[in-house]
């Protein structure tokens, strides 16, 4: 696609894409890449410094941190993709429809969006996670519910953006023309508004990827989120920081670096995409 070519021409954006690709590859090949299992405990080898058999050292249970970071990538990436994906779809539909229809409907829908926007995302996430009951305590369910919580937290922002974009595009000439020839609203939105607005929305939501992953970190702070013993960067960060940071900083630093790398990459990729698709031109030097 032209977009990918445009991205790779920019050094910083290309680097971000490469980093993300590495993480995705590592996550997919986790079992091959990691020498130890992420759940194997060894009480005699607790809190070992990086080196030798354990590239990143071991944690409080003697588990290999490299393996846990690599397997945790799966969790974080799925939560990110799923959460952002759900938010993008849901938010776009609601926002575009509301913006296109306009009038009283628009105003009412926007008030509902406001309610969700004003809602503390952590409480939302907490409620969703706890409401799913014991079923959520399997890894799959926990990932889906974390993603769902992130989606609900982020969807209002997407809706706002989609609405603003729709409102702006509604004035454009070709939209007016389409309506003049009698095209149904669905067709107008689907064939004209969305394709033009989607790239902008897409560029924005890549930035939300990081927010979704960081939300999972906050959930781990409360003891919710991905249940132990499954590895998740958020939980590893929380445990390492609050329990044994001075004695074994590697247990916090490596998951933290991984988290930062993914968040930064997606943010910069989002910047690049936004610059490419912004109809007003903007910065072309990324």
């Amino acid at each position, binding site marked *: 696609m032209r977009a990918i070519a445009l991205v790779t021409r920019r050094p910083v954006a290309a680097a971000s894409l490469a980093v993300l690709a590495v993480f995705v590859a590592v996550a997919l090949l986790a079992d091959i890449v990691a020498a130890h299992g992420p759940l194997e405990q060894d009480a005699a080898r607790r809190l070992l410094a990086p080196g030798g058999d354990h590239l990143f050292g071991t944690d409080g249970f003697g588990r290999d941190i490299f393996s846990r970071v690599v397997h945790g990538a799966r969790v974080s990436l799925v939560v990110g993709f799923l959460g952002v994906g759900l938010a993008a779809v849901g938010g776009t539909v609601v926002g575009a429809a509301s913006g296109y229809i*306009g009038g009283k409907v628009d*105003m*009412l829908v926007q*008030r*509902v969006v*406001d*309610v969700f*926007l*004003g*809602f*503390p*995302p*952590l*409480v939302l996430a*907490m*409620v969703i996670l*706890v*409401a799913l*009951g014991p079923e959520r305590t399997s890894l799959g369910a926990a990932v889906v519910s974390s993603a769902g919580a992130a989606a609900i937290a982020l969807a209002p*922002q997407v809706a*706002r953006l989609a609405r*603003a974009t729709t409102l702006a595009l509604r004035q454009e000439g070709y939209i007016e023309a389409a309506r003049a020839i009698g095209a149904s609203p669905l067709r107008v939105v689907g064939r004209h508004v969305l394709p033009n607005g989607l790239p902008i929305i897409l560029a924005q939501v890549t930035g939300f990827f*990081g927010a979704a992953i*960081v939300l999972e*970190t*906050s959930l781990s*702070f*409360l003891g919710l989120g991905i249940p132990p013993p499954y590895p998740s960067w*958020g939980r590893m*960060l*929380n445990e390492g*920081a*609050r329990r044994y*940071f*001075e004695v074994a900083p590697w247990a*916090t630093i490596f998951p*933290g670096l991984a*988290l*930062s*790398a993914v*968040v*930064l990459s997606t*943010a*910069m990729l989002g*910047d690049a995409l*936004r610059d490419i698709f*912004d109809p*007003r*031109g*903007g*910065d072309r*030097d990324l």
Partner: protein
Amino acid sequence: MARYIAWRAALVPLSLLLASALVFLALMALPGDVVHVIAGDAPATPRIQEALREELGLDRPLYEQYRRWLLSVVSGEPGGRSLETREPVRSIIARQLPTTLLLAIYTVVLSMLVSFPLGVMAAVRRNRWPDYLVRLLTLASMAMPDLLVALFILLGLLLVFQWSPPIIYAAPWTDPWRHALIMVWPAVILSWEYSAHIIRVTRAGMISAFSQTFITSARAKGLTERNVVLRHALRNAMVPSLTVFGLQFGRLLSGALVLETVFGLPGIGRGLVQAGLARDYPVVLALASLLVFISLIVSLVVDVLYAYFDPRISHTA
């Protein structure tokens, strides 16, 4: 415009009702209730738990509990009492809201002071080292979770100065110096995150404004660069900046959970989550409704300011 504001204001109570109903239903759907939290570790036979549940009114039908709570909002004891600690909701709000609001105000002020100049500078000195530095700092703030930043600051202070911030919170009118020493750290951390968003958006908005025709014509007319920058480009960048401000303010109020917990601030972020975990529904309802209310007001203010900054957006359609 006045009609628009009035119409929006009229919708606020409806939104609050909707929000509180949603929260109530969600809490009721959760397994476990406050009775299980109160007893602590100790054994309590189901009979005694039922008796306690009955005493607290938790055995009534859902709509009746909700109705009682709604009625209590307009009564002498608005919102009732916490089921867990027996503290009146009004005193909980009186304690937690000012703390969090103060933190939010400090954050916003600090961010405004920092973001606009930095965003402008980054846009004007685009792709030179000031720009890269600013962008690096903003990206760094997005990549580091609150907990880690707080940890590094606290550990740094401890290891280097053998000092830690005061642990007993004081309001600014009680002990301003201690209040400042406690609040400065979470305020700085929050404003680092908060300004990151504003800087990026300001910079982007200004850059895109620079390339537009009216800027070229302003330059052609011979206006000074400073004039161009401040009056025209910046104005143009205000709309997206305001969007970010509005979106993020709500997060500020409720999302400071980690910082409030670590720095010991008796604020809403921490209070809401603790009440939620304890299924203390009067407190959760009151605090959540309060947050939604503030968010609605902020949203209204932002929408009004939109119209001021961008005449193309009118609210009379």
